C-alpha cells in the first residue's frame, strides 16, 4: 500500500511541475516525471511477492512467476512517452528559434 501512495506522490510532483512552471523545458521535464510515475504504478500492480522474472529457462519448472501482462503494456507506454517527448522537444526548439525565449509568459502572440 505504501508503494502505491509514493508512486502517486511522484505523479503529483510531475503534475505540479506541468501546471505550475513557466519554462518550456521544465514543463517537458514534468511530463517525463508523470510518465515515469504511471509506468511504475502499472508494474507495482503486477508484482507478486517472491515472484520470478517471466523468462522461462531450459529445464527449470518455474512456479511463482510475476504477471507478464503489465510488463508488455509498460514497454509500449515507455516508447509512447519517448515519441511524445521527442515531438514536444522538436516543437520547443522551433519555438525557441522563433520567439527567442523558453518562458511561456513571453510567448503570448495568440490572444485568449
Amino acid at each position, binding site marked *: 500500500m505504501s508503494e502505491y501512495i509514493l508512486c502517486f506522490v511522484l505523479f503529483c510532483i510531475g503534475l505540479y511541475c*506541468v501546471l505550475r512552471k513557466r519554462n518550456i523545458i521544465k514543463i517537458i521535464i514534468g*511530463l517525463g516525471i508523470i510518465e515515469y510515475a504511471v509506468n511504475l504504478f*502499472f508494474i507495482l500492480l503486477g508484482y507478486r511477492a517472491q515472484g520470478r522474472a517471466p523468462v522461462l529457462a531450459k529445464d527449470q519448472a518455474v512456479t511463482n512467476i510475476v504477471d507478464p501482462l503489465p510488463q508488455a*503494456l509498460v514497454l509500449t507506454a515507455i516508447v509512447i512517452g519517448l515519441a511524445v517527448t521527442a515531438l514536444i522537444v522538436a*516543437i*520547443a526548439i522551433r*519555438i525557441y528559434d522563433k520567439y527567442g525565449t523558453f518562458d511561456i509568459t513571453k510567448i503570448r502572440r*495568440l490572444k485568449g
Partner: protein
Amino acid sequence: MKILPFFVIIPLGSAFLISLLGKKFKKFGDLWANLSTLALFGLSLHSISLVAAHKMLVYKVGGWLPPFGICMVLDGLTSFMLVTVNLVSFLVTVYAVNYMQKFTDKAKFYTLFMLMLAGMHGVIMTGDLFNLFVFLEIASIASYALVAFGTEAEELEASFKYAIMGSVASSFILLAIALVYGYTSTLNLADISLALTQKGGGFLISFASVLFLVGFGLKAALVPFHAWLPDAHPSAPAPISAMLSGVLIKTLGIYAIIRIFFNVFGATTTPVLSIVMFLGVLSMLVGVILALSQWDFKRLLAYHSISQVGYVMLGIGLGTPLGILGGLFHLFNHSVFKSLLFLGSGAVDYSLHTRDLQQMGGLREKMPVTANTNLVASMSIAGIPPFNGFWSKLWIILACVQAYIQSSKMIYIVYALCAIVGSILTLASFMKVQKYAFFGRLNEKWQNIKEVPGLMQLSMVFLALICIVSSLLVMSSFKPFLDSAADALLAGGGYQEAVFANVK
C-alpha cells in the same frame, strides 16, 4: 467478417507507402490518399449492411479468444462512427488536393493524415481498453504535428499548448486504465464489465471514471478543459481543422466516453450521466458566448465546435432512447456542417489570405460557390427548419421535455431552455458571419480575387448536399441506420453477452 482488419490495414499501408514513394512521384500522394479514403468510405457503407445482417461481429486479432487476445468489435455504434469519419475524411482529401499546394512537402501531410485516420479507426474498432489508448496516442501525435504543419510562430505555440494538454490527458487515461486493470486484472472491455458485474464497482471505479472523464473530456474539449481548442483549430491548415473539429474530437472524446460509460461501467445507475449532462450544458453556453465576440473567422468556428459538442453531450447524457438518438444524429450533422464551415473558411483564406471578418465584405459576387455552401452550413448549424441541424436539436430539446415529464425534475426544463438560448445565439453569431463576409458591398481590395479551384468547390458542394439530404434520416426509411447505433448504447450491459456470444 474478413473486412474488419482492413479498416486499419488500408490507412496504415497507404501511410507507409506514401512516406516511401511520396518524394519520388509528385502526384502519388494525392492519388493514393484519395483512392484509399474512397475505398474506406465504400467499406464503411458495406459495414452498415453487415451490421443490419447480424447485429454484432467480433474479429479475434491473432486468432486468440477475447480475454487473452485483442478483439475488434463491429456493432451499430461502430459502423455509425465509421460512416461519419470516412465521409468527412474522403471529402477533405478531395479538398486538400488543391489547398495543400500552398504548403511545402505534401507527402508528409498525406502520411500524417492517413496515420491520424488509422488512429481514429483503431479507436472506433477496438474492443480492448489498452489498445484504445495506443490508437488514441497515434491519432493525437499525428494531430499535434499536423496543427504545427505550416511552421509559423502562432501555429507552433498553439501546437505546443495542444501537445502538453493532450499528453497530460493521456497520462490521466493511462492511470485510469492501470487502476481498472489492478481491480479487475483484465483489459477486454466485455471482460471488464463482466468482472464488474460479479465484483461490484466500489469507490475505485468511480475514481477511475472521474479520471476517464477528465482525460477524454480534455480530448473532447468539454468546458473546463477547452483552453487548447480555440488556439489549435484555427492555426491548423483548413482541411486539418475540418478533420479536427468535425471528427477527431468526436472519436477520441465523445465516442470513448459513451463506449466506456454506457457499455463497460454501466452508467445508467451512477451519477456520471448527470455530470456529463451538466458539462454539456456548460460548454454549450460558454462556447457560444465566447464565440459572439470573435472577429477571426476560424476562431469563431472553433468556439462553436465547443458549444455543439455540448449539445451532443447533453443529448447522450439524458440516457433516454430519444435523447441518445438526438445526440448521435447531432454528432453526425455536426461533423458534416462544421467541416463544411471550416472548408469554406479555408477557401476564403486561400484566395484572400486573411481570416479577419472586418476586412472581408460582399464576397458573394466573386466566390458564389463558397458563399452558397457556407450559407447552407450556417443555416443548418443555426437550426433553420429544412436543414439537418434543426431536426437533431429538436430531438434533443424534445428529449429534455420528455425527461422532465417522466421525472418532473426542474433541471431538465433549465437544460431545454439553455439549448434553445444557445441555438438562438448561434443563429445570431452566424448571421454576423454572413453579413460581414459574404453579403454587403464588395470591398475594393478584393476586386480581382477569383473562385477557388474546382476540386475544392466539388467537395464543398457535396458536403452541402449531404447537409440537406441527411435531414431525410428523420424518416423511417433511413432511421434504422441511427436506431442500430442508439440500440448499441441502450444495450448497456448487454454488450458483454453479445461479444462473448458472437466470438466464434
